């Protein structure tokens, strides 16, 4: 039984032009202990998907308009706010892109950590909370934790802050960690450290991770399976191995081709995908990638392609994947 099953999830936002669906019938599953990568360009709906799972869409502008989110045998989107709170931070934890703004600037990090733990362990005494905070800080590799816990977020470096965020997420030993671009705001060297930390923590605790990123390199390093999103829809999903070895969707192919490679000829033109992602107000009726797709034909512009099985565990939403493959 999967840990998390997202089924036909749709989310919409109120804009000046009316309600706009930014996540359109997205489905995927995460097994216990697995790492699933959710990849796509900025604005493709990755973060909104994550926030929808947590019930954290900004109110009143955003809302889930369809589909279900199942966690084990509970359906999260039917739960009253109070019951949902028992999951947030407890069974499902989340870390965010900007560790600076995600921490309260006027509270000591120790207190923010203690809060995360105490919320789900109301019977824990002050001493127990303190020792758990120290343990967590140690677990995420923060030196001199007893001194660090008395500091404010601005006294820590970006990497340290993200470690604090991770420690906070781990406080109640969650089954699933949703990591929304946790390394995007960090230096490359720090990025590597944080990824390594996440991998180690996963081995240690056995939690599943939903890793949201636009960086395919990070996916390759961390994830066992990948969901590729484009303009609010799933374009392709497969195991990381299959996706990198044999991408089927023209968008995935384009993304992979856009990565500069060390073994390539130096100082050649970087491959890019021409055009831009359609804005939320101007989504085409058919395949949303049609206007940028080198293989686009009439049917692509008229009808949205359904997800089709390519192989076991490999689905693609493209009318022409067979043709493209044969070419």
């Amino acid at each position, binding site marked *: 039984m999967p840990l998390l099953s997202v089924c036909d999830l749709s989310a919409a936002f109120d804009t000046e032009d009316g309600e706009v669906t930014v996540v359109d019938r997205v489905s995927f599953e995460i097994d216990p202990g697995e790492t699933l990568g959710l990849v796509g360009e900025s604005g493709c709906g990755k973060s909104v998907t994550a926030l929808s799972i*947590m019930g*954290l869409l*900004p109110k009143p502008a955003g809302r889930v308009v369809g589909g279900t989110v199942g966690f084990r045998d509970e359906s999260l989107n039917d739960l009253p*706010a*109070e019951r949902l*709170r*028992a*999951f*947030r*931070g*407890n069974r499902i*934890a*989340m870390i*965010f892109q*900007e560790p*600076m*703004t*995600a*921490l*309260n*600037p*006027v*509270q000591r990090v120790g207190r923010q950590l203690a*809060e*995360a733990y105490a*919320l*789900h362990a109301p019977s824990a005494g002050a001493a127990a909370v303190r020792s758990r905070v120290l343990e967590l800080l140690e677990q995420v590799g923060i030196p001199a934790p007893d001194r660090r816990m008395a500091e*404010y977020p*601005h*006294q820590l470096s970006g990497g340290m802050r993200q470690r604090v*965020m991770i420690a*906070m997420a781990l*406080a109640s030993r969650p089954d699933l960690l949703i990591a929304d671009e946790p390394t995007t705001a960090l230096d490359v060297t720090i990025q590597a450290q944080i990824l390594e930390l996440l991998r180690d923590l996963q081995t240690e605790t056995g939690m599943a991770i939903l890793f949201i990123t636009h960086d395919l390199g990070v996916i390759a390093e961390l994830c066992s399976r990948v969901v590729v999103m484009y303009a609010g829809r799933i374009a392709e999903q497969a195991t990381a191995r299959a996706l990198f070895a044999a991408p089927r969707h023209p968008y995935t192919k384009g993304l992979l081709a856009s990565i500069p490679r060390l073994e390539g000829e130096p100082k050649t033109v970087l491959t890019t995908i021409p055009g831009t992602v359609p804005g939320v107000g101007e989504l085409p009726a058919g395949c949303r990638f049609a206007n940028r797709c080198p293989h686009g034909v009439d049917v692509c512009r008229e009808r949205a392609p359904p997800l089709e099985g390519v192989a076991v565990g490999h689905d693609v939403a493209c009318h022409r994947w067979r043709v493209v493959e044969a070419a």
Partner: protein
Amino acid sequence: MTSYFIRRFMLIVPTFIGVTILVFAVTRLVPGGPIERMLQEAAMAGADVGAATTSFGGGASALSDEQIDELKAYYGFDKPVVLGYLEWLSKVVQLDLGTSTRYSEPVWDTIKDRFPISIFYGITTLILTYGVCIPLGIVKAIRHKTTFDNLTSAVVFFGYAIPGYVVAIALLTAFAGNLGWFPLSGFVSDDFDDLGTLEKIWDVTHHAVLPLMAYTAGSFAVTTMLMKNSLMDNLAAEYVRTAIAKGMAFRQAVFMHAFRNSLIPIATSFGSNITLILTGSFLIEQIFNIDGFGLLGWESLVERDYPVVMGILVISSLLFMIGNILSDICVALVDPRVKFGSGETSQ
């Protein structure tokens, strides 16, 4: 941080000298003064005695030149501005504010009598303003764009748009004049000294209702809207989302996380309220005939009672400067990122 505040306190001295020099010079430069006022009074007294009394030469002066010189010497107007100022300053340093030309009693005594009244109104206004604005701002932020929010906005801006003295006159006419629910004027009743403790409290409260309404009507808008907007900014901040992602209830997140952050802009203006406590509003004091600081300042200006004007200036400018330092302390208290003067940069 301590050295920063020591430096700030030391800076009071030159600022104080600058402010007082300026006002002292103005009192010397503008036409009219205590002597002219006395001449006027003497002339009027002379006119009362008998219109037949002939005045000296062409000048309508009731006093001889020698008498005028004597008066000038008495008030220190015979010396050049700089010397006069230094003399005044050396007295101020010895805590002697001089003698009121109007009441012929020490300035300090004149001012001292008004303190309890002004402090009573000032502190009550302060408590009312913050006591109403902060909770109101919080509720408005949480219920943004609801009927409650729109209605209260209309009310606070209505109060803000109408000058306090107009509110005062309207209240006075309606509730004291026509309905007779409240006394017309004064701080306490004439028989105040004969009343028991409870009756005294009632009497002061009864007299204070209308003036306090007039004082506070205009002051709600700024602080309420500041609180509302600042809290809304913080509610949209990512750390509130983090708190909710941790499993906190929204309401809890508001008070545990967003609240303190949204007090930062409020704290910056807190210290300057200390001056408002004393200066009050002379127009409202005039309307309700409350013998406070504002009224005293106004009257002493009109009557050219310069020692009192300077005395009030000394006290209010000192309070203003201390208030600014107090604001800094408040900000440092609510925002740990603020470090004064240590040269340490924080983001």
